[in-house]
């Protein structure tokens, strides 16, 4: 059972077995296919169960029971929904831009799919480990907004267009804050590689080691990334009560499901990034040199740590959504450009100064 603690032994065993039985090219292709398939499967399962979790959490907030009919505790409800969506008609829209209309959902889902590939789920369970991991995730997550803009533009619907334009303004603005908030930890750890960032938190998470500035960064990251993924209270792109469904008003069937799934996966990516960068990712909770305490913490497998932290942040994000009313577009942009961004810039300078002087817990 040691692979629970370190997946690299298991992955190396598979690698060696494939190389022994196949030609080098064959082994390479097989590994690519295996990794791709695993991520795809994880994507689908996580996405579906996030939808389920959202429905249960929102039911909990609203004095309801939530889905409870399909399967035990309604666990299969989202599966049933997926089957329903798969079988639904893809309604063609007259005078819509057919090509862009069809491409948009794929762009959105590909962006989130690319993002999940770079996330370190556990020790050794990490598909691509770039030296620019943080930058890569930032970059691919902003592809999604192109899909949203295209969806709004090509639908030939006024509601969709307003939703898409809102989303464009919102994502472009809040990306700055997300980037700067992540940059703070990059400055602390001196690396953009996600595995290095996780390793650097072996003796304490950055949110604790970096004390006040890191906490400010964390809060800004939570707010800005919630806005970036278009979730409530920043869900202006959808704004059900104003624009019916915003940019995906005209989509049906599986194309709608793509938007829906991508939204939840983006939430997962954001939560996973927050967990990885600020809360130590799969790294157990260690406190300096308290040997006994650290050993007990090590006993809990890294996968559990990673998903525990991620689920905690997802719960926080859902909590916002189901408690707060929606902001107005000008208030949303004011919040970013007048408050978050200046604070964030100042915070980054402070962090650079702290690192220069060594005034943080090492």
């Amino acid at each position: 059972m040691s692979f629970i603690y370190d997946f690299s032994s298991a992955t190396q065993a598979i690698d060696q077995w494939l190389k022994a039985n196949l030609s080098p090219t064959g082994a390479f292709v097989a590994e690519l296919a295996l990794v791709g398939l695993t991520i795809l499967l994880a994507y689908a399962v996580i996405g579906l169960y996030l939808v389920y979790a959202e429905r249960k959490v929102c039911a909990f907030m609203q004095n309801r029971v939530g889905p409870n009919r399909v399967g035990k505790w309604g666990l299969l409800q989202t599966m049933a929904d997926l089957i329903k969506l798969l079988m639904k008609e893809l309604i063609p829209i007259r005078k819509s831009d057919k090509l862009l209309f069809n491409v948009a959902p794929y762009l959105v889902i590909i962006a989130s799919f690319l993002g999940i590939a770079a996330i370190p789920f556990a020790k050794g369970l990490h598909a691509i480990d770039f030296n620019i991991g943080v930058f890569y995730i930032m970059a691919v997550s902003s592809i999604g907004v192109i899909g949203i803009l295209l969806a709004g533009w090509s639908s030939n619907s006024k509601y969709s267009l307003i939703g898409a334009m809102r989303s464009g303004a919102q994502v472009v603005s809040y990306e700055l804050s997300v980037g700067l908030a992540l940059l703070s930890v990059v400055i602390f750890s001196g690396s953009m590689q996600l595995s290095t960032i996780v390793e650097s938190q072996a003796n304490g998470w950055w949110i604790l080691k970096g004390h006040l500035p890191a906490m400010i960064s964390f809060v800004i990251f939570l707010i800005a990334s919630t806005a970036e993924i278009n979730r409530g209270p920043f869900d202006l792109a959808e704004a059900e009560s104003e624009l019916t469904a915003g940019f995906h008003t005209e989509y049906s069937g599986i194309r709608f499901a793509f938007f829906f799934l991508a939204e939840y996966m983006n939430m997962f990516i954001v939560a996973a990034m927050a967990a990885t960068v600020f809360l130590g990712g799969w790294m157990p909770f260690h406190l300096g040199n308290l040997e006994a305490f650290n050993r007990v913490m090590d006993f809990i497998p890294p996968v559990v740590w990673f998903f525990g932290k991620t689920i905690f942040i997802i719960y926080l994000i859902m909590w916002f959504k189901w408690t707060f009313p929606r902001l107005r577009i000008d208030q949303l942009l004011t919040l970013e450009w007048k408050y978050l961004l200046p604070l964030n810039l100042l915070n980054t300078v402070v962090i650079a100064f702290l690192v220069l002087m060594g005034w943080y817990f090492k």
Partner: protein
Amino acid sequence: MKEVELNEIIASKEDGKYIINIGPQHPSTHGVLRFVVSLKGETLEYLIPHCGYIHRGIEKMCENLTYPQIIHLTDRMDYLSAHMNNEAVSLCVENALGIEVPERVKVIRTILSELQRIASHQLWWAAFGMDIGGLTCFFYGLRDREKVLDIFEESFGSRLLHSFICPGGLMQDIHPDFQKRVKEFIAYFRKKLPEYDQLLTGNVIFEQRTKGLGILTKAEAIDYGVTGPSGRASGFSCDIRKKHPYSAYDRVEFREILANEGDTYSRYKVRIEEMWESMNIIEQLIDQIPEGSFTAPMKAIIKVPEGEYTQRVETARGELAVYLVSTGDKNPYRMRFRTPNFSNLFVMNHLSAGAKIADLIAISGSLDLVIPDIDR
């Protein structure tokens, strides 16, 4: 905001103006109301309300129905103030006939009206929360409204369209448990109403969204004839319960809730306060229901003597006036309803000048429009 004719809009469409229809099928118009909105970016240039999508000709239908039958139609105007609507017609007919209804009926009518007002404001709060994006509010509001509807269901078998108050008294006597249930509800809701404040009132986002938005001055409220909580939020003292007491309102102590700002937030606050005030009224009356008959002796066929009669009541949304012209027949010659929502709707154009789309939804939510009441 200038008044623009429909033809002008269609003409201006060719200039590349961004005109969208909000409604008749839209989650935030709460019914089949249609706003034609011209936008400049997110900002509204002008707005034209179109009503009539649910016009059923209730006033004309009344001319062919007897008075007890008319009661059933009035339910369907402002379905959230069904008791008050019934009461308006009943009081009008009783005044015309010169009948004095038993004390028991007066007290019960008042309690029912106030319960109905609470239920209506609860649903308004739920829907208003949803309009500005707080989806959880909807379930909190409906959870408590359910308790009121259960009381209604127990006493008269229906939850929405009661037709319970009729000329001469009530359709039947109240359920023996009525008093107990109402007291339970008041005790319950006194605990739950602060939750509404916790969820919305103090919230920064909510205050930013509503404060200083859609300001209606007192003079404008009087000009447009905006009554009810929306008018009182502008400082227009227009509570019929105070000005022209009917039923048992002359024997209860209550405050007329007034605010001076006239913005969306004060309309919100006035309604929340009214729920507290309604509970006070019910508490004063619930132990004072006199024994007696639930109806005055009435003839089988009610014939109103020739003449013109009018009666005003305060519904949950404002002043409902009934104007009745009778030729001494069993049907009215002419029946006219001055419904509160019709006048409240037409300040929309004025209030939403220069607002954003999101503001439009907040403003129309704060006016608490019930569309069948506009169209009748």
